[in-house]
């Protein structure tokens, strides 16, 4: 992993390290050469690690008090909120933590899209990232079911019913998923089990994600390959550690604001009504972070094709390194891509908005246009753009634009700061 040899100073350290090179690993992590021009969009990797650990720790505590039973789940959540010491705090951190996690992951993903971080040689990092994102959605969905409120129950019913769209075996699969003929106690207990399992799978994949990152090293805002270590890099510790720490603290202020002052604003009021299989809520909506995909699902009139469209919208991301034919990574040097990038951002936000609205009239029309554009972006615009676009000249090293050396690069840098940041 490391480019250089490391020998511990102490005798014991050397003895230990010869048998298990943990110290070499620690040394690699602290010395890891990082491009020095990383902007704050790059701090979200560290923030996401924090989010994952927060979710795991608060989740463990909640699991000590929660009862996964259809008759007792709702009561046990209220017990946590009222009688467990600081139970309200732990639960609100966990519930809002999920939203914060997705907020951070969306910024992280869109940063990759802007700076072309998914391109060679970083395809594996990207694909592992997409798998993590998929698992996150699964974990979040199942977690939302656990309080056994009305949205939990009906959300679970709607989403699991999607599998019935599969020809021939669909109905059988749904019954198998439910563990019965409707969403009920067996569904709740298995969702709890999986909700407990998935975060640890994510943790494992995060290790692989970082490992895969440490082979080629970080991409950077200029998007060029750099020599490591060199004048273009700084050691991870202390430079990046303190910068990530600063960004994390800013993030935590926002997080704390949600937890302490508006803890229920991101949830749905109906989830404070205990699940009732006989009463369907007026509008069944998923959590905000799943809304764009929900909009895609509902924009297709056919159930099976809707499910296919929704899943394709996610899986298409995995093919992105090959769909984007441009050799230039950073959008800073791709004037056309930069515009399409922002249109895509707007498109996804629109999908999210219409996903929260009833699927009828104008909303449905907008959802259909936005869905079509989403696929158009990845399947047509990106491949064609790579051949047609006239890109700006890219610098040879990042030191120069950073120091403002050549006039050409100085313009590039100005552009970068005015457009991106």
């Amino acid at each position, binding site marked *: 992993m490391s480019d250089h040899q490391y020998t511990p100073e102490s005798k014991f350290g050397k003895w230990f390290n010869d048998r298990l090179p943990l110290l070499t690993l620690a040394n690699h992590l602290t010395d890891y050469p990082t491009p020095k021009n990383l902007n704050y*969009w790059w701090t979200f990797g560290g923030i996401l690690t924090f989010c994952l650990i927060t979710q795991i720790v608060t989740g463990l505590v909640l699991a000590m008090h929660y009862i996964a039973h259809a008759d007792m789940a709702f009561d046990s959540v*209220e017990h946590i909120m009222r009688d467990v010491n600081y139970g309200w705090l732990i639960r609100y951190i966990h519930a809002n933590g999920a939203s914060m996690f997705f*907020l951070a992951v969306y910024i992280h993903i869109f940063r990759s899209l802007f700076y072309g971080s998914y391109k060679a040689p970083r395809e594996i990092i990207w694909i592992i990232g997409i798998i993590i994102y998929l698992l996150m959605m699964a974990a979040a969905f199942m977690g939302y079911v656990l309080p056994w409120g009305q949205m939990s129950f009906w959300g679970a019913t709607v989403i699991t019913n999607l599998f019935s769209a599969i020809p021939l075996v669909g109905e059988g699969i749904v019954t198998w998923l439910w563990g019965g003929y409707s969403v009920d106690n067996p569904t709740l207990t298995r969702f709890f089990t999986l909700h407990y399992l998935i975060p640890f799978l994510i943790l494992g994949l995060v290790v692989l994600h970082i490992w895969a990152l440490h082979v080629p090293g970080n991409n950077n805002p200029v998007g060029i390959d750099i020599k490591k270590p060199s004048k273009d890099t700084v050691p991870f510790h202390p430079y990046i550690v303190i910068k990530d720490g*600063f960004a994390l603290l*800013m993030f935590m202020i926002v997080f704390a604001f949600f937890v302490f*002052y508006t803890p229920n604003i991101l949830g749905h*009021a109906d989830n404070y009504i205990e699940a009732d299989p006989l009463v369907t809520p007026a509008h069944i909506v998923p959590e905000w972070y799943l809304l764009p995909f929900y909009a895609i699902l509902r924009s297709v009139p056919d159930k099976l094709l809707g499910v296919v469209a929704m899943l394709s919208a996610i899986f298409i991301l995995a093919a992105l390194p090959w769909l984007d034919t441009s050799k230039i990574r950073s959008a800073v040097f791709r004037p056309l891509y930069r515009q399409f990038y922002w249109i895509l951002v707007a498109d996804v936000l629109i999908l999210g*908005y219409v996903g929260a609205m009833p699927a009828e009239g104008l909303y449905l029309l907008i959802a259909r246009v936005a869905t079509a554009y989403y696929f158009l972006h990845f399947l047509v615009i990106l491949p064609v753009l790579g051949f047609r676009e006239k890109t700006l000249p890219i610098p040879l090293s990042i030191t120069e634009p*950073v120091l403002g050396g050549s006039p050409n690069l100085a313009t590039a840098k100005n552009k970068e700061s005015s457009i991106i*940041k």
Partner: protein
Amino acid sequence: MKNFLRIFFLFVLFSGVQSNSIAAEKIEYLKTDWSFKGLFGKFDRAALQRGYQVYTEVCSSCHSMKYLSYRNLAQKGGPEFTEAQAKAIAASFEVKDGPNADGDMFTRPGKLSDKFVMPYENVKAAQAANGGAYPPDMSVLVKARGGGVDYIYSLLQGYEDPPVGVTLDDGVYYNKYMYGNKIKMSNQLSDGLVEYSDGTNSTVEQMSKDVTTFLMWAAEPHLEERHQMGFKAIIYLIILTVLVYFSMKRIWSRIETEV
């Protein structure tokens, strides 16, 4: 630093958009100044005590509050009745207990550890007594309704004669704030219905406000503690962020790159 402010604004914007989209289909609710809103929001102790009185004398004949115990009435951050008062309140209720050594159920006066006594044996009994409609449990009611406290406060004062053309079935009433305007609960409040022990004039508006405050506390019994802790936590984080910012500047000044 400039970038940071931008990221920060993005967050703020995001939170604004979120709250807007959730409150999308809103009706204008009646507004009042809730003492528990805002960074330092606290419950009005007297309002909570009066609200409890309205709940027991009016609401509790149909609505249960199954997650509350009599001990909560003496808890910090709540109505803060004295322990003796809370004990007396509990003792004024008959609680079914048992089985005793002979295997029989018996009733006894309530204790602090008892949950609020339920008005009906079960959901079916509640429905049977209320024309088929189940009076919802009130423990988390304000969190379970889109408009929250403003909605409940408005609903209690929203009874009107139905507009021309709207016909109501027997046992259905017109309320301008109710979803679909039809409600199975009749108007419960009228001026002077409750005689407040602290001498406050019991107008419909006053009772609505008091009982809604009480319901807010019932749904969020740790609200005051949450606000106090939140303020400390955020101040702490801001100070730490500033310190880390200057440390970062210091460390990065060793190389010729801006952070």
